[in-house]
């Protein structure tokens, strides 16, 4: 038995108006001088320790502070000491040590019983502890009710609540119950003591059901057994059923591997000769694979006559609306040929260089010529002449544009290889008739919808005189095209003579050369006003509008004003090569 020094066990306030401290004396039996324990206390703002005012009211080894000594939110310190020695010390404030008394006057009333009389509901009521001044709101209490059957050991708890009454549902009328309640200050954690136990007995009020002892419980066990049996029967019947569909639905067949390989048994057994022979027949395996496997397609090579193909099929397809949506490339077929996935037309590399040479040729010299001005260096071609060869980069010669009566297409001087071929053909307003005559057109306008409006070269001449002023401007030499700003200036000076749609700030006329970027931005930035279809205004039938822009270098020109989907000109140099166009057009 070890020595225990005196300790302050707890300090408690039942109603936040008084408080008491309790201590244990310890077992210092061996002291000669009988110990006199004192409890000293001090409020936080005081200097001196004072002695306990009341050692009696709360019992032995206690100190009681009545209302006049109690200040609720003031920090206190108490210490247990004898003459010379301090044994224990505690500091607190009264609001922290509130532990209410138990509720009183518990009673219960019957609410109703079930039809069979086996279960009943009751209402339990009580009063708050008399010491707690709940009526004036000085303290707010919460109550927790616990109940159990008389012969049970574990109490059932209800959630703490503020009200002083609570219903209990579905109590068995054949059994007796015990109820107890305790309280705590709201927002505290600790509960006070339990109240006295309340006994609930239904038989006392004559409701007790003597013959209701047998209880109908839910037959869980039976349900389980039958459920398992039923499930087993179902599964077996499905497995054995002749209905392949049902069987496949519930037990889908596990696919066996389709890859033909080497039988691992051969490797295990060490039959290397056979393995070798199998491996040697690798080629055979390959062909087998191809012939058996359904998922590989051969890439179909297009060995048809390009002209015929272009004339008959591609353009038609290109010009019809459907192909706008499909991944139509110039060489697209409808079947799953290898080229279907490739959206770029079959363009030889040289076509791209055509655009580069354009840079060299589209210099300002052209502008000085009162002769045609093509957009994007397009007027190199001469429909009467053969197309300038790539090798021949003499700009002057290429700029020699005889003014045909035809309109100029802004076809780039593409391949000279195919020089005898006519350059880009415009299409007459009849959508599907592919014009066979060669003529050029110039891009006269680009509508907000993204359509490039072409006008015949003749007409452009009319207004050319007025546009002389434009041509005198300085254009950057390095850039083959006008800067957009220059174009704008140019446009601002001139006005549209023909029945062209009203010029916007970024509107184009056929005088301008444009960089791809300017074209792009212009197309993107064109304002709200849509241009009327030029074909309706232009007397000449060979107007075209850009129908499709094939990325990255394609342009399909259409005579009619078809609504062009919002596509940007994202060509490398802004025009198609002759070759490409030839593929597009007849």
């Amino acid at each position, binding site marked *: 038995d070890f020595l225990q020094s005196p300790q302050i066990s707890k300090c408690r306030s039942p109603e*936040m*108006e008084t408080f008491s401290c309790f201590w244990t004396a310890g077992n210092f039996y061996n002291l000669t001088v009988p110990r006199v324990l004192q409890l000293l206390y001090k409020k*936080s*703002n005081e200097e001196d320790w004072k002695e306990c005012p009341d050692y009696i009211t709360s019992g032995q080894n206690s100190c009681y502070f009545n*209302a006049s000594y*109690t*200040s*609720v*939110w*003031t*920090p206190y*310190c108490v210490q247990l000491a004898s003459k010379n020695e301090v044994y224990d010390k505690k*500091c607190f*404030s009264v*609001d922290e040590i509130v532990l209410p008394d138990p509720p009183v006057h518990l009673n219960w009333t019957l609410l109703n019983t079930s039809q069979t009389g086996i279960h009943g509901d009751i209402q339990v009521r009580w009063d708050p502890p008399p010491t707690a*001044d*709940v*009526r*004036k*709101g*000085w303290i*707010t209490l919460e109550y927790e009710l616990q109940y159990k059957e008389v012969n049970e050991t574990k109490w059932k708890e209800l959630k703490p609540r503020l009200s002083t009454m609570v219903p209990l549902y579905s109590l068995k009328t054949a059994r007796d119950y015990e109820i107890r309640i305790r309280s705590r200050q*709201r*927002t505290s954690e600790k509960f006070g003591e339990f109240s006295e136990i309340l006994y609930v007995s239904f038989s006392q009020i004559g409701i007790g059901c003597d013959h209701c002892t047998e209880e109908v419980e839910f037959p869980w066990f039976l349900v389980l057994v039958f459920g398992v049996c039923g499930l087993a029967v179902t599964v077996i019947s499905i497995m054995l059923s002749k209905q392949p569909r049902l069987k496949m639905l519930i037990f889908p067949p596990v696919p066996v591997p389709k890859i033909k390989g080497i039988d691992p048994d051969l490797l295990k057994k060490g039959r290397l000769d056979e393995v070798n022979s199998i491996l040697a027949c690798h080629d055979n395996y390959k062909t087998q694979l191809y012939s058996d496997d359904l998922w590989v397609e051969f890439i179909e090579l297009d060995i048809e006559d390009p002209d015929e193909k272009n004339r008959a099929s591609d353009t038609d397809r290109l010009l019809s609306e459907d192909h706008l949506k499909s991944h139509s490339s110039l060489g697209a077929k409808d079947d799953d040929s290898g080229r279907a996935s490739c959206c770029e037309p079959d363009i030889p590399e040289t076509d791209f260089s055509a655009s580069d040479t354009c840079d060299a040729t589209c210099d300002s010299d052209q502008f000085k010529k009162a002769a045609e001005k093509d957009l994007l260096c397009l007027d190199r071609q001469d429909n009467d002449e053969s197309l300038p060869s790539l090798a021949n980069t003499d700009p002057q010669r290429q700029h020699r544009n005889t003014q045909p009566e035809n309109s100029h297409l802004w076809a780039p001087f593409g391949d000279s290889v195919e020089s005898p071929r006519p350059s880009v053909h415009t299409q007459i307003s009849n959508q599907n008739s592919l014009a066979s005559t060669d003529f050029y057109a110039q891009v006269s306008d680009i509508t907000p919808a993204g359509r490039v409006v072409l006008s015949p070269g003749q007409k452009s001449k009319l207004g050319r005189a007025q546009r002389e002023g434009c041509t005198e401007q300085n254009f950057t030499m390095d850039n083959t095209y006008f800067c957009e700003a220059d174009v704008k200036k140019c446009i601002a000076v001139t006005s549209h003579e023909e029945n062209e749609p009203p010029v916007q700030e970024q509107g184009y006329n056929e005088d301008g050369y444009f960089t791809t970027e300017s074209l792009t931005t212009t197309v993107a930035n064109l304002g709200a006003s849509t241009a009327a279809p030029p074909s309706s205004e232009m007397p000449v039938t060979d107007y075209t509008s850009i129908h499709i822009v094939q990325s990255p270098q394609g342009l399909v020109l259409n005579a009619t004003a078809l609504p062009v989907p919002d596509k940007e000109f994202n060509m490398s140099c802004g025009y198609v090569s002759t070759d490409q166009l030839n593929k597009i057009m007849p």
Partner: protein
Amino acid sequence: GLLLAALLVSHMLLTKEGVTSLPICPNGSVNCQLSLEELFDRAVKLSHYIHFLSSEMFNEFDERYAQGRGFIAKAVNSCHTATLTTPEDKEQAQQIHHEDLLNLILGVLRSWNDPLIHLASEVQRIKEAPETILWKAVEIEEQNKRLLEGMEKIVGRVHSGEVENDIYTPWDGLPSLQLADEDSRLFAFYNLLHCLRRDSHKIDNYLKVLKCRLIHDNNC
């Protein structure tokens, strides 16, 4: 989609624990007159919620940081609101005039405005402060503002004469919350949270006493 999101957000904002939405009189509505009973109900709910949060926050802080540092022994602290003479027991609370008590409540709330703002910001600098403490600090600061507004409304209704605004204690504890020494800094937080718990309990109690006195005629 948007509507559902808006509904969810508004539901979250409205159903705070302990504070239910009372949509009879939306905030900012000038012509709507809540009854005094309604105003007191809301005020009591708010004060209870604030005290609940302060309690929890103090307990969490105590558990997390104060154990083993002997803070409890030192904590015979004085709060900055100690200079305000507030009723310290039931007798005094019953004897004080309700207008004076209301002014005192306002004074205490105002005095806590500043410390709460700094608490919310400084507590984030505590090393590895738990999210719950951070959230509670911000929440308490918000709710305190709302309670202050509500109390000013009540005072406007109840006061017969001029409203006194001079009950206020300044707080100069910010440097202690920013001390370099971690122990000292944590002790400063401990004290502040302890004071907050105590003062929020005070306010809660005073409001309940006033409510029972004015609305229910001392018969809650």
